[in-house]
Each structure stands twice: as structure tokens, then as C-alpha cells.
């Protein structure tokens, strides 16, 4: 009984807190919408490819085990202060 009352008290208080809180979604304070487009939602069908649809199908053969230099990043990580890599750190 003790435990039931305990839960009821918490529930009532929690419901009260949630009821008066400004709905977070309405604030739209996250930058989520800006980031969404990076994920290609509704832009590319990833399961289309299975139908033998690769425009690259006739081009390069599959790479052999990649050469080690290819494993070194050349992208935006170099823009991070102190984030540039020296060759040899990644083998």
C-alpha cells in the first residue's frame, strides 16, 4: 500500500510538471531540421540498388584491400584545430 501511494504521488506531481511545461517541440530549439537534409531522407532510395542499378557497375573493379594511404582522412577533420593527421598515425 505504501508503495502504491508513493507511485501515485510521483505520478500526480510528474503529470503536473509535464502539463505546465512548454512543449519542447513547439520551441523548435534544436537545429535538427537543418541537419536532416544531410541524411537524404526521401531523397535517395537505398534499396533501389539491389535491382542491379549501379551506374558504376561497368567501371572500376572492386578495390583490392585498400592501400594504406587511402585510409588516411582528407576531409573536414583537418579543419578542426589540432585535428590534422600526420601520415603514419593511421596505418
Amino acid at each position, binding site marked *: 500500500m505504501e508503495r502504491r501511494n*508513493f507511485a501515485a504521488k510521483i505520478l500526480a506531481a510528474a503529470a503536473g510538471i509535464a502539463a505546465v511545461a512548454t512543449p519542447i517541440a513547439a520551441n523548435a530549439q534544436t537545429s535538427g531540421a537543418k541537419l536532416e537534409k544531410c541524411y537524404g531522407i526521401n531523397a535517395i532510395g537505398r534499396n533501389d540498388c539491389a535491382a542491379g542499378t549501379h551506374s558504376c557497375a561497368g567501371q572500376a573493379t572492386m578495390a583490392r584491400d585498400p592501400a594504406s594511404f587511402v585510409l588516411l582522412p582528407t576531409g573536414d577533420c583537418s579543419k578542426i584545430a589540432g585535428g590534422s593527421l600526420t601520415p603514419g598515425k593511421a596505418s
Partner: protein
Amino acid sequence: MLSLLERQQAFQAMLLASSSDERQAGIAVYRNNIRAALTLALRLSFPAILRLLGEDCFRAHAARFICAQPPREGDLHLYGDAFAAALAGSPLAAALPYLADVARLDWAAHRALHAPLAALLTPQALRAAQGDSVFVAQPSLSRLTLRRDARAIWTAVLEQDDAALARIVPDPGEIHVMVMRGLGGLEIFEVSPEIFAFAGALVQGLTLEQACAGMGDAEAAEALGLCLTRNLFTGFTPTGREELPCP
């Protein structure tokens, strides 16, 4: 004659081998198709990793991952949940300590964006819950513990904000983050370790009473209230069990 199973096992192993005899044109077609389709799936699900590593490096790491851990599902939306762990185990991790956490954010965002938006648990409905209620999380919800710099890097990279990237300083301090699909789209927010643990207990299927163990009434109410405000749950199931073991 090879049985069908033996033939398929051998053929699959050949397609996944890191190198193979590609003098047979037919095999080259299948190997190319597979590599292209699976690399595309990873590119779409890990846009921040793609930008951080650059095209060649991403492709090379994707290629290794594809051979080591090919998909287990016939739907490529589900492919890549182990990519962050693979990056964490790669030599890159030593030089780019934030990389695996950025990949976890990428995967959580991808998951959230493709998940259904389920009905929200309202404060009114909550009043019917019991101490032994088990809560049901939004299908899009991920809970992540990350390096603090990883979140800043992820955001700056995706927003192509080079100035912000240049300002980032390494910060291995832990933060707790929730990623989900909300009414307004993708939502990412940081929570306190206490709220993170409380929500985690509920997400993992502990009862409300078990999740509240060791918390004061006001503290528990505040934590639950915040979970509701953030729309983390879609409902709860009364378990109907009589008594719970005392936590």
C-alpha cells in the same frame, strides 16, 4: 555436384573476399554491385563521417567494414549499426578520438529519421500509471554517452560551419544525449546523468518503481515530468503483478 547451400556459401565468400580473381567479368559485376550498394547505404547513414574522412578514406573504411560485417537484413536502412564500433577499433581512432562518437550520432540521427512517430504519452494518461507500470519508449529514441567535442564536431561538420570547426578544442568530457524524432523533426538534447540513468532504466523495461529507487519523491516526479515533456514515451503497460521485490 555442389549442393545449393555449399554453392551459395562459396559464392558469397568469394564476393566478400577482400580480393579475388576478377578475370571472370561476371564476378566483377556482382562484386561491384554489392560494394556500390552497401557503400551508398553507409554514405547516406553517416554523412558527418563521410565529410570528416573525405571520399577516399570513407570508401576505404566502408570497404573493410562491408567485407568484415556485411548486412544481416534485406533492408539497407538497417545496415550500419556496427560501423561506429568498427571505426572505434580502427587505427583512425587513435588520431581522431571523437570519430566513433560522431558515427554514433550519425547512426542515431539516421535511425530516428526513419522511425515512425508514435503517439505521445500525455500528462492525463500518465495519471493512470502504477508503480509497476513498464513504459514504452518512442521507437526513434537513442540514448548516447559521448565525448563533449563529438557533438560539437558533428553539428559543425553537417552545417558546414568551418569557423565553428576551427574553434573546437579537444574535450573528452562525457555528455549524455538523447536523439529522437519529435513533432518538429530531428531532436537532439543533452540531459543530466541522473535523468539519463532514470530514462534508461525505463527504456530498458524496469518498472516505474524500480526506476525511482533511491530517488526522493520530488526528484522522481521531476525526472518523470521531464521525460514526458520531452515526449520520450508513447505509453505504458500495467504488468498486473502483485508485489514487486523491494529494490
